[in-house]
């Protein structure tokens, strides 16, 4: 089997699995909402990986843009208008805007310093969410709102009560986002990002304004991360500061690494494993933090290339 056929086959399998997920999730002991969560967090991890794996920039604070998307969506419904599409748009604008501003401040930094500054900046929004009680609901989270049925003009889709319908809405948006990212990565612009990842000095001396390209990549990544955030809030009709916490940022990174940073679909696979594990562990033991922590350590020590990285290696040898 040639590499191309194999690639096409696995692509078809991935989409087939995603399209039918609500119908086999229960059979394997899951539930539709768990599947939706995999998609949403997978999208966030793939958005992060746009930076991490394909631009080579160590961003560790993506919970900020994810969380801003989530709060933006929740607050739009609660304070502005009962519209799901509006909520998504507002959340995405909010997260992307924050990414654009913070990105501009940090594009000169590299490596561990970039990581440290992104982590630290993400905390601002965490504290705002906690302290600005009147608007954000503080520690208890933003409640008293829910997603609304989609009005298509000729009819309504009840995404509120029908969780399968909501799953497919998420899947459509996921497909668009992922398609756009894939398209970008295959474009001349996408290749400049690979160039920066591979060898920044060479890229600079081929005439690339590195900072501009890293900034763009950062903003694009924040855009899709905040889209994932809006869907996360809509999924549970609730959002609390945990979505903005640095531990959430770390979770996104571990998903990307676990699945394989160098492969486009890796983070989705990582998200699936992580979400299922977290779901299982947190419902079986109070010490889930230790188990997740241990999981981090094990992945780093024994599994640095991730699932897809390992598979690809095997296929090669």
């Amino acid at each position, binding site marked *: 089997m040639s590499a191309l056929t194999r690639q096409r086959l696995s692509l078809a399998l991935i989409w087939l699995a995603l399209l039918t997920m609500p119908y086999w999730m229960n059979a394997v002991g899951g539930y539709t909402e768990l599947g939706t969560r995999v998609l949403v967090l997978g999208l966030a991890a793939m958005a992060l990986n746009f930076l*991490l794996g394909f631009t080579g920039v*160590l961003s*560790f604070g993506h919970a900020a843009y994810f969380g801003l998307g989530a709060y933006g969506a929740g607050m739009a419904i609660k304070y502005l208008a009962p519209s799901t599409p509006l909520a998504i748009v507002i959340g995405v604008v909010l997260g992307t805007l924050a990414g654009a501003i*913070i990105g501009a*401040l*940090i594009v*000169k*930094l*590299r*490596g*561990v*310093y970039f*990581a*440290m*500054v992104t*982590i*630290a*900046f993400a*905390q*601002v929004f965490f*504290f*705002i969410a906690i*302290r*600005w009680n009147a608007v954000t609901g503080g520690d208890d989270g933003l409640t008293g709102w829910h997603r609304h049925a989609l009005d298509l003009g000729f009819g309504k889709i009840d995404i509120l009560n029908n969780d399968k319908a909501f799953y497919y809405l998420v899947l459509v948006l996921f497909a668009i986002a992922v398609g756009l990212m894939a398209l970008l990565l295959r474009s001349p612009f996408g290749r400049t990002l690979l160039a920066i990842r591979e060898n920044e000095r060479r890229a600079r001396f081929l005439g690339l304004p590195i900072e501009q390209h890293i900034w763009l990549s950062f903003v694009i990544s924040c855009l899709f991360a905040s889209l994932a955030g809006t869907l996360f809030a809509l999924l549970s009709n609730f959002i609390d500061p945990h979505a903005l916490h*640095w*531990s959430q940022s*770390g979770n996104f*990174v*571990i998903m990307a*690494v676990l699945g394989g940073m160098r492969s486009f679909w890796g983070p989705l696979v990582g998200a699936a494993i992580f979400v299922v594990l977290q779901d299982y562990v947190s419902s079986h033991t109070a*010490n889930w*933090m*230790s188990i*997740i*922590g*241990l*999981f*981090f*350590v094990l*992945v*780093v*020590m024994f599994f*640095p290339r991730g699932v897809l990285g390992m598979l690809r290696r095997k296929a090669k040898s």
Partner: protein
Amino acid sequence: MTQLLLFNVFNGLIVGAFYALMALGLSLILNLSGVINFAHGGFLAIGAYLAYSLIPYVGFWGALLIAPILTAMIGLLVERFLIRRLYQRDPLYSLLLTFGLAYILEDGTRMIWGAQSLPYVIPDWLTSPLSSEYFFLTGYRLFMVVLVAVAVGALFYILSRTRLGMRIRAGTADLETVSVLGVNVRLLRNLNFGLGIYLAGLAGVLAAGMLGLDPTIGSTLIMPSFVAIIVGGLGSLPGTLLGGLLIGVVSGITTVYFPSASEAVMYVMMGVVLLVRPRGLLGEEGRLQ
């Protein structure tokens, strides 16, 4: 009003001293080994809880002496068996590893000592106010400032006068040359890590007396320490010290006028510093790339 302001400035200075103590340890490790030790807060908590368990047997002073050393020993082991394996790899991996360790340490303290906050006994004569007008000037607070000052002084003495310290500084500047000159870089990094963790442990013993003792004590202090390093300047220990004190005081002052922004203000400050001077207040040129 003046008194309230003074109180909060002084308070900020003390909190800033903790940030600085913790950030100095983080900086040592970051500068020599390129590792962001996310678990630093976890080590701080270990130091605090060890002191809590030791106080009934050896008293406060004994705990102050022993607990940081025990914490540092745990740090040496963690470096030896886990972190050391990752120096050759992308810094992403050491970051994730210490991230996982932070989870384990926080949960571990919760498992051993419980999730409730615990009473932390400090000597009576340290807790009484020294002046009725400036009620906040308790002996313990003054004592903490003095002790942090002594610890920082000792650290800078070690770095500039002892053989280990000079090697750490030389290694920070140019690790390759130092290793060619026959210095055992593995041992150097190990001891340096231990030194950083010692400072975290010490900060823990002191902080518990002021902030109270519960398992999240470390994770509340770690982020400000990052900010201290960034504001103070990457690669510069005096900068880290300055950064820690500065954000402590600024957030103390903000508490007076706009209490709900007391945490956010340090991140705003970080943004301003990065905008005006990307390498930080006392940062070295060329550290960014």
